């Protein structure tokens, strides 16, 4: 045995000894009163300077050298807990944190500095507690997760009132919205004015807009990780809320105390119930004895059951179901000539999501945590228009029944297994795999006709595109590593594969972010992330319509990909406020944009011909100041950004191949969100937003349509509208203030709250769209007709004036 061999063996032995000298302390971090697990809670050892964060299931694991340690468990809004321990072996410590009465008075953004703030390696991410979301004033008093996210820097809403997300120059289909880890495809109700997420059912919302951890993939611009409440494990609680357009109920409690819990939330609008008597009244007033039914409503049902099998195993079953429904039925019945005549016309639109996830948490050992999820998610749009007629012909009662239907949607079955592994102090490794089987239903029409007329042919035909099936697979690994207190980094790799119609695409993407702790209160972070996206949403309405279609990449339309580089400074101002400034540059490739004149209302026929592929780039600077403690909380966000597109590939030219502004390229975006609790009984919240107007396309010039040789124009305009470039017109700036007043009162069995809110409190008429029209009160003399004609003018359409609303909530 030579000297080198001896040295090698010695080093191996020393390594093993070092490993052997480490022990792991692990467990769940939970709310003492409710038993809810706490996400992104912090455990920190003052002796070694090491720390860990509880994962999305509340599990933490911290590997430390054997010996004495001072552990401190913290979670914002809760009393901290100190645990001096002497560790000689792997130890399980479940921590039950007591909500702090003092801190309960405040709502807090960015709950964990360990992960997202000064100390963490992650950047471009914000953790938004649901309490904060609920405090933000909302349209019709409807708390809305997406609209709260729109108030963050780097995130913009789309059209006025819309719940769209445009993150760092990306498009609305580039956001991965996960509900308990399962993708949600249609996140909007009512044309995009409300999101499908009922805040009563939610525990935590985290937005990633850059430097995506390797465990996420499949979208270019953002990941919104939304977690549902498990349900109170100790006591039965609930709340009932009656609002201007909807009512909600939330119930939670133990089925078996400390073992099995449930959480159930339901929300439904009732505009249809109010509309129905009005409709009947007018029908009678008009002397129309017909039977009318018409209306619109949406509902959301969230349900979750969690069951603790043992300290090592937990099962969760979560379900979401939500639909938008438009219906109309007109029945006209009369007798004529001694026979019955009846004509019934009906229309039914029905669209929404169903999401089901079965999850198994398993603590393999104190260092290794496993989560496996089997899930089903489906979005579908069904439309039926029908007419039933009964009439008399030659003494015979004839019945005809005609129906035309249209269905589209997407359905996923998925399997995900993920591991959290803490092998050594300073390492928090996550790795796992994800498989999704997609079924795209791109638009199928059904036509049926039946009658009792003799010798008449009945029709039952289905036509449209066939289902498209695709397999998506992802592997990832990331390590959140600490090299002393100065340097912390998250290094990961994401591999994804997408197989559709005989074509396979693969992508290997590094994800790196690093933090340098310059002082105890100041850190510098930088990172890069590559992302790919294999599906597209076909929609050019800028609203969220049920006819929007998700389609996969094809041979011709290859996956989109992006690279994002970012850097920033993070500063904690004496625990009084957190400040950050982040800059980013994002390049995007294979983006799709609709060709001139292309539209997608309900049909994806030949959609590849309707889009062009090109590139985009976006850059910006984001500033965020947030106050997280005290009676007054909130944040001030400012974003300066630019987003451009260029489509110059042969045959796919848009805007003559020249660069043009993205539709939602807004230079300035400011939002101020404040919440102040004056007393235990009165609370005031307000938001003010200002942003540069959206871009639209206007034809600034007009000229005469020439005669085209060898052609006879039988109809058409005599005028050509000349558009110098796409998105050439900047709409007027958008600004709005929302206010919310909450009056709380402790009652015998719970707390009642009256909330009065004003959306668009100073009644600013913001632009929804503009068009060239005619002035109502300005005229010009027409020399040809010798008349006074209305002067041409630019007309702005606004849709939301001041909207007051009131709601009543009783929480028990």
């Amino acid at each position: 045995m030579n000297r080198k061999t001896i040295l090698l063996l010695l080093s191996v032995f020393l390594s093993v000894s070092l490993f052997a000298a480490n022990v792991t302390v692990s467990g769940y971090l939970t709310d003492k009163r409710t038993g809810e697990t706490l996400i992104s809670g912090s455990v920190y050892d003052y002796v070694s300077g090491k720390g860990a964060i509880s994962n999305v299931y509340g599990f933490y694991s911290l590997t430390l050298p054997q010996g004495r340690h001072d552990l401190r468990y913290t979670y914002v809004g809760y009393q901290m807990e100190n645990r001096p321990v002497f560790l000689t072996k792997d130890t399980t410590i479940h921590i039950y944190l007591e909500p702090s009465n003092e801190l309960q008075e405040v709502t807090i953004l960015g709950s964990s500095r360990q992960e997202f703030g000064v100390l963490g390696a992650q950047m471009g991410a914000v953790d938004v507690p649901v309490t904060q979301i609920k405090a933000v004033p909302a349209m019709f008093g409807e708390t809305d997760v997406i609209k709260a996210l729109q108030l963050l820097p780097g995130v913009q809403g789309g059209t006025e009132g819309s719940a769209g997300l445009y993150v760092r120059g990306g498009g609305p289909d580039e956001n991965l919205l996960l509900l308990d880890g399962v993708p949600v495809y249609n996140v909007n109700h009512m044309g995009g004015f409300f999101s499908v997420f009922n805040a009563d059912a939610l525990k935590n919302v985290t937005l990633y807009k850059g430097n995506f951890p390797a465990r996420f993939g499949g979208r270019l611009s953002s990941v919104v990780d939304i977690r549902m409440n498990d349900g109170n494990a100790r006591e039965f609680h609930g709340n009932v809320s009656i609002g201007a357009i909807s009512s909600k109920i939330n119930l939670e409690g133990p089925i078996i105390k400390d073992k099995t819990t449930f959480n159930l939330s339901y929300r439904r609008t009732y505009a249809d119930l109010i509309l129905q008597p009005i409709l009947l009244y007018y029908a009678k007033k008009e002397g129309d004895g017909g039977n009318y039914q018409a209306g619109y409503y949406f509902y959301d049902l969230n349900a979750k059951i969690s069951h603790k099998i043992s300290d090592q195993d937990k099962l969760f079953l979560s379900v979401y179901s939500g639909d938008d429904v438009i219906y109309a039925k007109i029945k006209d019945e009369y007798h004529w000539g001694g026979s019955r005549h009846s004509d019934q016309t009906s229309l039914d639109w029905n669209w929404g999501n169903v999401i089901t996830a079965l999850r198994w948490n398993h603590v393999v050992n104190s260092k290794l945590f496993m989560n496996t999820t089997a899930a089903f998610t489906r979005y579908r749009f069904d439309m039926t228009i029908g007419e039933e007629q009964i009439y008399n012909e030659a003494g015979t009662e004839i019945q005809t029944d005609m129906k035309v239907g249209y269905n589209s949607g997407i359905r996923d079955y998925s399997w995900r297994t993920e591991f959290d592994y803490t092998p050594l102090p300073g390492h928090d490794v996550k790795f796992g795999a994800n498989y999704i089987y997609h079924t795209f239903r791109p638009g199928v029409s059904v036509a049926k006709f039946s009658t009792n007329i003799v010798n008449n042919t009945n029709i039952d035909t289905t036509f449209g595109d066939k289902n498209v099936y695709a397999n998506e697979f992802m592997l990832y690994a990331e390590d959140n590593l600490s090299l002393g207190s100065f340097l912390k980094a998250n290094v990961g790799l994401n591999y994804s594969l997408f197989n559709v119609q005989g074509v396979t695409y693969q992508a290997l993407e590094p994800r790196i972010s690093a933090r340098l702790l310059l002082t105890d209160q100041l850190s510098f972070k930088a990172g890069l992330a590559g992302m790919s996206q294999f599906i597209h949403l076909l929609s050019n309405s800028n609203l969220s319509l049920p006819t929007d279609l998700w389609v996969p990449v094809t041979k011709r339309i290859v996956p989109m990909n992006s690279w994002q580089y970012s850097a920033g400074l993070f500063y904690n101002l004496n625990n009084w406020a957190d400040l950050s400034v982040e800059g980013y540059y994002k390049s995007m490739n294979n983006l799709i944009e609709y060709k001139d004149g292309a539209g997608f209302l309900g049909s994806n026929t030949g959609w590849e011909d309707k889009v062009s592929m090109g590139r985009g780039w976006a850059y910006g600077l984001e500033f965020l100041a947030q106050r997280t403690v005290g009676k007054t909380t909130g944040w001030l966000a400012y974003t300066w950004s630019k987003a451009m597109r260029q489509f110059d590939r042969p045959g796919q030219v848009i805007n003559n191949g020249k660069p043009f502004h993205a539709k939602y390229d807004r230079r300035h975006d400011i939002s101020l969100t404040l919440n102040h609790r004056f007393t235990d009984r009165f609370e005031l919240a307000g938001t003010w937003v200002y942003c540069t107007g959206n871009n639209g396309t206007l034809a600034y010039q007009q000229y005469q349509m020439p005669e085209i040789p060898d052609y006879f124009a039988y109809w058409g305009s005599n005028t050509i509208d000349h558009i110098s470039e796409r998105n050439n017109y900047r709409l007027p700036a958008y600004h709005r203030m929302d206010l919310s007043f909450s009056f709380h009162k402790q009652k015998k069995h719970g707390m009642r709250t009256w909330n009065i809110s004003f959306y668009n409190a100073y009644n600013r008429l913001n632009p929804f769209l503009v068009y060239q029209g005619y002035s109502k009160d300005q005229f010009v003399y027409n020399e040809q007709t010798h008349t006074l004609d209305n002067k041409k003018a630019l007309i702005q359409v606004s849709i939301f004036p001041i909207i007051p609303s009131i709601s009543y909530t009783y929480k028990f």
Partner: protein
Amino acid sequence: MKRHTILFLLISVALVSCEKEIEFNGEQVEPKLVISCFACADSVVRADITASRFFLDSGETFVSVTNATVAVYVNGVFVENMQHISGAKYIGTCKPGAGDELRLVVTAPNFDKAEAKDVFPRKANFLSIDSTITAGDSSVISYPVEYYTHNGQSDIVYDTTGWEYTVNYEYKIRFKDPPGERNYYRLVVFETMVYPWMSEQDYIYNRNFLNGFDDLIFQSGKESSMNEMFEEGTSNAYNIFSDDLIEGESYTITIPYRYHKYVYKDAVSQNNESRMLTFELQTISESYYLYLKSLNDQNNATEFFSEPVQIFTNVEKGLGLLGTRTKQPIGNFILSY
């Protein structure tokens, strides 16, 4: 379905929307010279010169520029100034041919100088045309029909019996696309009503330009924009196409024609009407193709949320088009039944 979607949107928006006039805060654009020149190889060059107007300016008519100087350059050499005829119309005398570069430079008081250039494409490599009858049918009709007598008389005649004839023709036009270059084509098909008393000069007033053919080649010249499941498909109004699908290959375009005719016992003159089909395969420049395609797309973009269409222009510091084409006549076919 589209109707219902829009109805739903309009109801939603109408419930709460309001309108107001706003100041235009974009770039104020001065009127520009508009060149409309569709030059044909081996023919004199003609052009219309008009002025554009700012979209918020009053008036519905356009100004013809009558005092412009329209300089013609062929292959970079000044040839002549075009002569003003009337209104917006100007004409030259030179006849540039295939392969020549035509450049127009237009100046007029109070306007920026506008100029454009284009190269005449080579003549299409036409190979053959075949005509076949694919089906024919006739039947007796016995319902009242009203029609006008000939010679501009407005007498209405009611006929109660007659014959209905249908003959389906199919024309196969074969040509070869030159390899290694991007080429653009336009198939011109005229249907002319020919009456015994009509002179050949009158044909033009009885012509229909036929389009909307199903041949796959015409897909490249249009964008589908409407809901084809529930509505009619979009049309390729100008029968234009690129060689994207046939690069360097021979291709046969199939043109069906359905000759449908009623013969009435009392309408002798109308019964003598026959049809003539005229085919011409034009090669057109890329600019001309993009211009016609954008006109076509704008006409087809009827959806409320369709992306607005930019009309192509190749005029610098002005608007409009200088487009070139080279004709390849194919033949005339008199139809009978």
